[in-house]
């Protein structure tokens, strides 16, 4: 011990021990503070931190409801939900990205476009462990091959999503409408809570009108997630309420028949059961495959559709506004009779032309030389223009407007088809408002044969004919027949607003119906050829809508005019006469004459429907017997 010898070791030891006691005190104080801190966190504020901790790990996730299915009247499925499988990758779990992509390209048919898009997304900032889609809509074969090889591909997953599918493709595109991805505008309209997990929304037609019923109510899932947002387990689940299944009045067999009848043409057929207003066929030809629009149509395909001269995207049945031509003559006859302008016995002389006064313009009849003496019944049967020129001028625009409104012209009288246009029923006020011109007598002349300003859709023509078939009784056209579920039909079907068209003498209806029966069965009926061989009686009215008007003395030669400039062929009718079960309106664009082109189509629809009514309802296979 070279040093410390002279030190007071005992005093140093005491000094140290005092200091050690001080340090012991420090230990007690600081540990006391720590204990106090933990007591504060764990005992006093325990509740608060439990809440924070639960909020950390538990996430509420919405579970989208399954969209309701749509059936035709016979139970044929016409809108279903198909699982669509896509390949997604979690980059963090993929070992070698290049090798994985190469392997996937060997297994599946993945386009370079898909791969490029994927690589682009890979570069963008994103949440870790987020799934990135690579390839959509796998075929069955691809799903199978993914199932076999999945274990070799870490981080690659096949995910499923239910997507709307229309088994009949273009047959129903205009009748049903379709769904598509929710867009920004719709996002502002919809209930964000209920649509929290929904990607698709009804864009048009029935899909749009009954969106609320079809959609259902969103469900919730409380899931435990880790800090990276990966779901570990489901803690609690409130199941979504699936959308309700709808049954439509549509009969797919008749719908198919309608497409067959218009094959290779442009036109529309609307068929309604006048007993309940159910739309049993609604065809606009050509159609398009709505399935393309569901997941998003490619730019090229969309351009092809929208730029096609045949306008497949155009819903002719509901939105095609054509001059109704002679098809409105029965309704005008009714107006003439009930307003007292003419009686059933009133006859006029038809020299082949009509003049408002001696010096006026000559309005020509379609038949050169005229029909001679005609009464109202013959005027409809033979479609005498002169009778109606005279009637129209005598009645005046106000009376015509009043009665034609009663038949549903100039308005959308449908209940639930969605997107139907109102056409144009001209009036004195309309002309003043739109054109700042008075109503001329010549306007009444044009209006009386469904030309001039007058425009109507095939749906409106069928509806007006339905009112005639029902002898003034209104049932507004509708798609929805039934809801398969708890909701009563009346809760979702919009209420009727049209009032029956009552006339002073109810027998006048029979007179008008008789005149339409003569069109089909009379010796000089314009469509008598179309009624040949029928074992039932039918009523109808032909019409032609001029695509361009002829000058006063010009001759009309269909052969010389290019096909696209030919008149539209129109026909309205119903059958059987005494117990109407089907009302049909037909338009064949540039079809030439109503009697030659449109009437046989209607006849075929009558035949098909009446025969179906006598046989058992059948479900059509969904294998897509759709028309090309």
């Amino acid at each position: 011990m070279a040093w410390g010898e002279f030190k007071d070791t005992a005093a140093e030891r005491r000094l140290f021990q005092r200091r050690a006691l001080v340090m012991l005190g420090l230990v007690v104080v600081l540990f006391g503070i720590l204990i106090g801190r933990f007591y504060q966190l764990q005992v006093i504020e325990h509740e608060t931190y439990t809440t924070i901790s639960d909020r950390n790990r538990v996430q509420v996730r919405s579970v989208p409801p399954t969209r309701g299915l749509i059936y035709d009247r016979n139970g044929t499925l016409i809108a279903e939900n198909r699982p669509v499988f896509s390949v997604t990758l979690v980059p963090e779990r993929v070992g070698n990205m290049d090798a994985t992509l190469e392997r996937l390209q060997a297994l599946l048919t993945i386009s370079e476009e898909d791969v490029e898009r994927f690589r682009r997304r890979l570069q963008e900032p994103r949440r870790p462990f987020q799934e990135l889609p690579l390839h959509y809509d796998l075929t069955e074969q691809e799903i199978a091959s993914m199932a076999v090889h999945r274990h070799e591909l870490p981080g690659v997953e096949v995910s499923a999503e239910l997507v709307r599918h229309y088994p009949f493709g273009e047959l129903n595109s205009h009748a049903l409408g379709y769904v598509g991805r929710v867009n920004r505008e719709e996002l502002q309209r919809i209930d964000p809570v209920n649509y929290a997990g929904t990607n698709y929304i009804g864009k048009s037609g029935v899909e749009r009108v009954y969106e609320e019923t079809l959609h259902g109510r969103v469900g919730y899932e409380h899931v435990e997630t880790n800090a990276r947002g990966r779901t570990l387990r489901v803690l609690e689940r409130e199941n979504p309420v699936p959308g309700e299944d709808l049954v439509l009045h549509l009969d797919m067999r008749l719908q198919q028949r309608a497409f067959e009848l218009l094959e290779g043409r442009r036109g529309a057929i609307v068929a309604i059961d006048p007993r309940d207003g159910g739309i049993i066929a609604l065809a606009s030809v050509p159609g398009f495959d709505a399935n393309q629009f569901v997941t998003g149509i490619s730019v090229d395909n969309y351009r092809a559709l929208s730029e096609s001269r045949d306008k497949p995207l155009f819903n002719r049945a509901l939105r095609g506004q054509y001059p109704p031509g002679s098809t409105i003559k029965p309704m005008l006859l009714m107006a003439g009779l009930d307003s007292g302008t003419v009686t059933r016995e009133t006859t006029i002389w038809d020299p082949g032309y009509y003049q408002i006064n001696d010096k006026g313009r000559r309005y020509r009849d379609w038949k050169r030389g005229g029909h001679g003496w005609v009464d109202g019944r013959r005027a409809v049967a033979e479609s005498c223009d002169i009778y109606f020129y005279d009637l129209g001028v005598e009645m005046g625009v106000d009376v015509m407007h009043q009665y034609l409104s009663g038949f549903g012209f100039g308005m959308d009288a449908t209940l639930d088809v969605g997107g139907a246009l109102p056409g144009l029923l001209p009036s004195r006020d309309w002309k003043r408002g739109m054109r700042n011109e008075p109503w001329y007598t010549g306007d009444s002349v044009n209006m009386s044969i469904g030309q001039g300003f007058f425009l109507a859709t095939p749906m409106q023509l069928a509806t007006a004919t339905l009112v005639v078939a029902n002898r003034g009784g209104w049932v507004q056209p509708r798609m929805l027949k039934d809801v398969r579920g708890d909701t009563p039909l009346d809760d979702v079907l919009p209420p009727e607003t049209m009032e029956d068209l009552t006339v002073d003498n109810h027998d006048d209806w029979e007179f008008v119906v008789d005149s339409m029966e003569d069109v089909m069965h009379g010796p000089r009926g314009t469509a008598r050829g179309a009624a040949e061989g029928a074992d039932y009686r039918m009523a109808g009215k032909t019409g032609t809508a001029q695509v361009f008007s002829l000058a006063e003395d010009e001759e009309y030669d269909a052969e010389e005019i290019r096909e696209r400039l030919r008149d539209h062929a129109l026909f309205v009718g119903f059958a059987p006469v005494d117990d109407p079960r089907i009302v049909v309106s037909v338009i064949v664009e540039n079809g030439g004459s109503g009697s030659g082109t449109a009437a046989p189509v209607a006849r075929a629809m009558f035949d098909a429907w009446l025969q179906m009514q006598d046989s058992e309802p059948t479900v059509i296979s969904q294998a897509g017997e759709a028309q090309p």
Partner: protein
Amino acid sequence: MMGRAASVQASSGLQRPASLWHRLHIDPLLLLLLALVAGGGLIVLYSGADASMAAVRAQAIRFGVAFAALFIFAQLDPAVYRRWSPWLYVAGMAGLVAVLVVGVGAKGAQRWLALPGLPRFQPSEIMKLVVPMMAAWYLSRQYLPPRFRHVVIAVGLVLLPMGLIIQQPDLGTSLLVGAAGMFVVFFAGLSWKLITGFFALLGVAAPLMWHFVMRDYQKQRVLTLLDPQSDPLGAGWNIIQSTTAIGSGGWSGKGWLQGTQSHLEFLPESHTDFIVAVLAEEFGFLGLATLLAAYTLIILRCLYIAANAQDSFSRLLAGALTMTFFVYIVVNIGMVSGLLPVVGVPLPLISYGGTSIVTLMSAFGVLMAIHTHRRMITA
């Protein structure tokens, strides 16, 4: 009891017949306490490392190495430590300088020295032992309590390596090294006037430090402590998640392996610096209190050893090493529970990680050496 009583009787003679523990230079009580905490730590670690047996195995191997180091350090006579202190200090300083010149490391900090023929090591880690040794060597040569001049020199001996370590930069280690040295000065009998003056100076110097010494990330840590919610997804994340883990544990915890904060990866560093949050979440307030009780017993035993050491060097060194251990605990737990800014200090005996466990056990080895090499000069 009988054997012990016999040995006590025998010790009244010239030489105390050494028990097996004494011959091994091991203090059984301290060893038992250390083993208990280390064993409990492995259980918490298994959970904190997300039920990874591999982590537990690796940690157990480190404990094996560390206990071996303890055993070796326990064999040396304190006089040896005292004689070697200046040379170790010079070597350590050289190492610190070398680290700054040729050191290797990651994340913008140079802490490691890779000398040919030696395993990679951190000179700063060794300084946790060497700096208190040096201070104790110097002060034990003086009359105690020390004069002001000696205090200045001793403090200088401490500040020099501290400054070098801060340059790496490694705030946590430099604080521990500094604390170890300062405790020696305190135990030596630093006058209360100077202590009061020091803290007064610190109060004045703090704002100056803030502006001229502290780096931005260090300032950020202090600001985050004061208001973690100001940046909940960034700097505040750690502290929010750890207090949430602790608070949600409640009185008795969520149960082993049931901690959602740690197992769902909300709690960062759950098996290293923030492991006490895992303990508090899964074993609750009772678990934390138990741990602190065990630590208190270890500190009590060590202070007892220090108080009974036979010479000033041993006393000062033992006292300083004990208090360094205490500082580890306070800084780590204070940081995790949101009382102190985030400083990279592991929880002794429990946090996953290599170097500090070995240093720590070596320090306990030195304590045991001090205790078991006492000469029984009775009567």
